[in-house]
């Protein structure tokens, strides 16, 4: 267990801590609303796990900065007239380089911009909205349970079900 691996892995450990906190809330608390909140925390920690994996050291967000994007679009329109041909990846690199030289004050950069991985972002983005919709469903069920049983306490509900 070197210091290097601690520095490389602590993110995962924090995520696991949060995940286990959510799990503990679900297990140890009887109130149904609290359980839903615990599930929410668990869910958020999963989002954080995915986003953590997508980060690249020294990278930036996968949104091309406006200045570079404008230069790029200009270069792309200038070079190939029709969009019909599918450019190769090397072509994209050249376009990016041309854009870097094109955009005046950006010319000093020989290093390419590193972008973090956009794929985890996409997966989690949809998952968050689906998550709130399903949370709303769970809360609706909690409301109905309260209306029928008069309580949101798990053990009380079980007792009522057993007919005590």
């Amino acid at each position: 267990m070197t210091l290097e691996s601690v520095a490389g892995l602590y993110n995962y450990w924090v995520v696991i801590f949060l995940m286990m906190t959510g799990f503990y809330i679900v297990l140890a608390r009887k109130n149904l609303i609290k359980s839903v909140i615990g599930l929410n925390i668990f869910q958020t920690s999963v989002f954080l796990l995915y986003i953590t994996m997508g980060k690249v050291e020294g990278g930036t967000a996968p949104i091309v900065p406006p200045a570079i994007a404008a230069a790029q679009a200009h270069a792309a329109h200038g070079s190939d007239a029709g969009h019909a041909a599918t450019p190769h990846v090397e072509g994209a690199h050249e376009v990016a380089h041309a854009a870097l030289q094109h955009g005046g004050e950006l010319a000093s950069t020989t290093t390419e911009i590193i972008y973090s991985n956009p794929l985890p972002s996409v997966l989690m983005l949809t998952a968050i909205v689906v998550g709130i919709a399903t949370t709303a469903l769970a809360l609706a069920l909690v409301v109905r349970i309260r209306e029928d049983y008069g309580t949101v306490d798990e053990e009380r509900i079980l007792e009522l079900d057993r007919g005590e």
Partner: protein
Amino acid sequence: MTGFPIIRIITKLLIPYILLFAFYVQFHGDYGPGGGFQAGVIFASGLILYGLVFGLHAIKKVAPPIVIEKCMALGVLIYAGTGVLTMALGGKFLDYSVLEHDVLPHWHVPSGQHLGIFLVELGVGITVTAVMTMIFYAFAGRKQV
């Protein structure tokens, strides 16, 4: 919240900007952070804020549940309709490249992908707005037993 006149005034002041911001997020989503999901949630939050401050009957006048209900399905319809449109134009389902030369040839759309992404995000935005607003109506319209 009749007890809070200042909150009422501030809400009246803010809501146009919230809705404008939602539109900005929706239509600027290709260029900065944002997109249909976020814009839908923000738009719905604007409506919910109005409902919180002025009451459920006021917000139901602004956004009638019957219309919002239809919008829930309308968004998915726009999304899937885009896919069917691309199929009708000879491409694959949701292959936006075919939109480029066949739809709106006189409009200077940057590319078929742009147009397709715009339509799809619009559908997502409409559905998310409608679903969130309807969920709020469902919860707020219920009386405590």
